[in-house]
């Protein structure tokens, strides 16, 4: 029946398949979830980076985003909840030649893993962190996260969130990250470029991706279809490179400031450790 599709060539393999675990596809992510596109951008960035894929490791925590490591045909580890950064730190210290990337959710990195995040930034651990922010805990059915905007509804804030959220770029910049950027999933090319820049950066580099969770966050906040939610974030975003991340708070309505916020150089933890050796 599908061979009746007009002008389409039916294939079995995708050009990105060599970096994917095909036996695990299709992935578990909901239709229209932004996570698949984040993974596409990451794979596309890997294809453009001139790296030995045996030296790239992807570490994830728990959550829908946390599944990312398991879909990549690279060395990787699916750690316990919140512990992606300490696991990645151990890998990097054990073998400083590795390119270690953490791909995890806002809940995993900012809530249970919040302390690991700020201290890895403070030490300037040479890691790249891709934080997919869908403003809630998607996997466990849409609970409030530390990134949920004030007044937003979630399954654990049905009357509206009474808390102030974390502003991820501001937190990363204030605690010592050397590269900080934020994009929405629809900014595919810019996101890909930021992932490349972050992976080329020595030090703690953070890319926040604003992503729809149509199944929970979108439904609770009446944001319409997955496509509408994705378009909403894109339409609300204003690109302001090198602006003060303190101004980049995300409210329930209003603009989302995106772009590159920080790109600085300073000694990494490994640099200082080697200096102390001598």
């Amino acid at each position, binding site marked *: *029946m*599908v061979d*009746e*599709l*007009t*002008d*389409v*060539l*039916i*294939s*079995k*393999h*995708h*050009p*990105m*398949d060599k970096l*994917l675990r095909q036996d695990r*596809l*299709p*992935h578990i*992510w*909901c*239709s*229209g*979830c*932004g*996570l*698949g*596109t984040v*993974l*596409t*951008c990451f794979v*596309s960035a890997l294809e453009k980076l001139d790296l030995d894929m045996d030296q790239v490791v992807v570490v994830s925590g728990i959550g829908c985003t946390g599944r990312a490591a398991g879909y990549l045909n690279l060395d990787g580890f699916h750690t316990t909840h919140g512990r992606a950064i300490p696991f990645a730190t151990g890998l990097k210290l054990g073998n400083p030649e590795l390119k270690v990337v953490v791909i995890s959710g806002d809940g995993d990195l900012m809530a249970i893993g919040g302390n690991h995040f700020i201290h890895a930034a403070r030490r300037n651990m040479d890691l790249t962190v891709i934080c997919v922010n869908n403003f809630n805990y998607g996997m466990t059915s849409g609970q409030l996260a530390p990134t949920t905007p004030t007044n937003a509804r979630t399954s654990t804030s049905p009357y509206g969130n009474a808390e102030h959220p974390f502003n991820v770029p501001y937190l990363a910049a204030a605690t010592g990250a050397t590269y900080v950027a934020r994009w929405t999933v*629809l900014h*595919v*090319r810019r996101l*890909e470029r930021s992932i490349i820049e972050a992976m080329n950066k020595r030090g703690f580099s953070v890319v926040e991706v604003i992503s729809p969770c149509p199944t929970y966050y979108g439904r609770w906040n009446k944001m319409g279809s*997955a*496509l509408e939610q*994705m378009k909403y974030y894109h339409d609300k975003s204003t690109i302001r490179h090198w602006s003060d991340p303190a101004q980049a708070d995300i409210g329930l309505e209003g603009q989302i400031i995106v772009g590159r916020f920080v790109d600085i150089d300073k000694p990494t933890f490994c640099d200082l450790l080697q200096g102390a050796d001598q």
Partner: protein
Amino acid sequence: MKLWRKPLDQDRVVVPRGEIHLIVERCKGCQLCATYCPRDVLEMSSLFNTRGYHPPQVRNARRCLVCGLCTMLCPEFAIYVEEVGHDQ
């Protein structure tokens, strides 16, 4: 395309032509590709894959310029475009 003057490099510019490939069973019918194709090459079909989703199909093959946006946006690694020659 209507040009208001003949570009100096017109004889050297080639317009690539693309072919759309689909791994039908991976598609979850999210419509991202059909919505964002800047050349309106794709549309959603009314057919079903075995998971019950409507995959996209090509509405206007000649318009594809191989920009690759569908490949980049597809969350399922289900669609990609390949260059197959060019128009002068």
